[in-house]
């Protein structure tokens, strides 16, 4: 009993209001909070602030405060709605493809077989190629004149003449989604694999003793155990897909026509091409709100306790 402490003297009141756990939690969270407060909070507030002004950098002397005009203007902007629709298409297609492929691949890599480690290392390659190189590589592959995709399909006799790929407005967004999925699957797989690895093996043994077949084991043990992994995948990939920019920039610049004019591209054009920082910030906030809402839903439906 010698090492029990009694609250006494200075700090007693503090300790009573904030127990040992509170103080520890504060201590443990402090570094993250310092980093985020120091680096991330100002930019967020600053762009919120900008979104209430009509700012055109080419007219530095006229930057009126316009309340919510930048926001309300969005709803009458035809191209904005086009971009919303493109973003929805792109995100739904790519996130669901990522989730399904990553699920299958993680199940595969969870098996014991020869060459598994080699395979899992190879899987990381797409992730390791910087986005710029990745985008240029796909541009090359998709090229309608001398691209590798045309070459391959032609040599395999799937097509008898070179096809138009990115230039075909019905295909563009899906082709970009493909390049995106290819690059994102590795991370998603790793996240799912980690949650698979957290399933205690005796759980499977118990289920096997209980006579559960492979499908029952999958649906009753594996899938539920992967929920946290799925939550991470859904939050992260949705965030990435909704806000994805690099591929659109390098592959199509929103074209052809407005076939790949996604919201993030729209924001880019508004901000850096039109130099309208105010309305660009307003759009960003709309996008942020949607991203947050989706993340919230994923946390609530798939998260453990968050």
């Amino acid at each position, binding site marked *: 009993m010698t090492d029990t402490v009694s609250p006494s003297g200075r700090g007693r009141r503090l300790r009573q209001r904030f127990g040992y*756990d509170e103080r520890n*939690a504060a*201590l443990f*969270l402090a*570094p*993250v909070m310092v980093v*985020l407060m120091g*680096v991330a909070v*100002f*930019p*967020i507030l600053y*762009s919120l602030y900008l979104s209430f002004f009509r700012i055109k950098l080419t007219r530095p002397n006229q930057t009126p405060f316009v309340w919510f005009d930048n926001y309300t203007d969005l709803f009458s902007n035809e191209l904005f709605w086009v971009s919303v629709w493109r973003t929805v298409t792109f995100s739904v297609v790519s996130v669901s493809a990522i989730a399904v492929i990553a699920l*299958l*691949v993680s199940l*595969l890599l969870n*098996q014991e077989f020869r060459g598994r*480690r080699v*395979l899992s*290392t190879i*899987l*990381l*390659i*797409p*992730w*390791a*190629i910087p*986005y*710029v*190189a990745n985008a240029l*590589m796909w541009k*090359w592959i998709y090229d309608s*004149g*001398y691209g*590798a995709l045309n070459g*391959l399909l032609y040599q395999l006799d799937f097509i008898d003449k070179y096809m138009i790929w990115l230039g075909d407005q019905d295909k563009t967004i899906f082709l970009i989604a493909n390049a995106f999925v*290819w690059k994102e699957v590795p*991370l998603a797989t*790793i996240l799912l694999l*980690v949650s698979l*690895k*957290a399933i*205690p*093996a*005796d759980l499977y043994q118990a289920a096997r003793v209980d006579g559960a077949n492979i499908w029952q084991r999958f649906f009753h043990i594996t899938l539920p155990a992967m929920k*946290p992994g799925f939550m*991470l995948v859904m939050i992260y990939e949705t*965030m990435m897909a909704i*806000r994805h*920019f690099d591929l659109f920039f390098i592959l199509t610049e929103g074209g052809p026509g407005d076939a790949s004019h996604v919201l*993030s591209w729209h*924001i880019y054009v508004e901000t*850096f091409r039109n130099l309208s920082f105010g309305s*660009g910030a307003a759009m960003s*906030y709309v*996008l*942020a709100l949607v991203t947050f809402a989706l993340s919230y839903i994923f*946390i609530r439906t798939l998260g*453990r*306790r*968050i």
Partner: protein
Amino acid sequence: MATTERANLIDDRRRLALSHLTRNVVIFVSAIVLMLYVLAPVTWLVSSSFQTEAEIVSVPPHWIPENPTLMNFEAIFGATAEEEVTYETRSGQDPASGGYIPSTAGNLLPAMGNSLIVATLVVILNLLVGVPAAYALAKIRFLGRDASVYFILVTRVIPDIALVVPFFLVIRKLGLLDSLGSLVLTYLAVTVPFTVFILVQFFEGLPDELDKAARVDGCSRFQSLVRVFLPLSLPSLVAVILFTFLTSWNEFLLALMFTQTEASQTLPIVLAAFTSDFTISFSFINAAGVLAIVPPVVVAVIFERYIVSGLTAGAVKG
């Protein structure tokens, strides 16, 4: 009676063998499909890096270079270091050796070095900063826990494009323009929220009672984290290491804005700079892309084995 029993036995054995066979076939086929899916574009990347600029536009493409050349790689590795460039030593003076190889070829390796430094620091800082935070959020019940989680999430929902300019202001105020520090700091800020999320999810999966047992055994919160949780969290730590390393390795937009000179430019920037309005060097870019794959794969080979081991088994009775 006895014969049917034996027949059943044989039948069972056969079924077992059959299911083993099916399993192996399924694994084999999916492994092949996966390899093709992942490697097909990469194969093209590698193949084209050994071709000249003229050859990679062949129709149909040459999957195996007909006139393989090491010119791209020679330009990258053969660059002489740090001699002052004069009219006489500038590359491009002699069109025969200049060709499509950009004069900045020699910047690639230093830029990879920059990327490596930044990525490594970001990984280390992420672990130092993210691990305790995740433990607190997962295992300590305190007022403001949910608020903290959502605060961390909120910092990541705004598109980076909107944040570039204000980020720039922060970096300038900190006096970090055109330094690796600017990248380390901002990459830390953009990766750490997700690091925390990954770890929180994993820590929450570990039984509360392990934490309690450790603390009753005499661990402070911090000791419980270090001695009990960290050893059990290796797979998720590896996921975090890979995630933060590769995010830093890949990042383009912020690096584009914050770096100006070769001293701080990272790989993606130098890579993008190979397509200027004059020089077109796709095969060269592909060679650079091939080299860019190497460091992350080395990191993966070092750490990936830890994802495989499932250490939590036996912590709690099924």
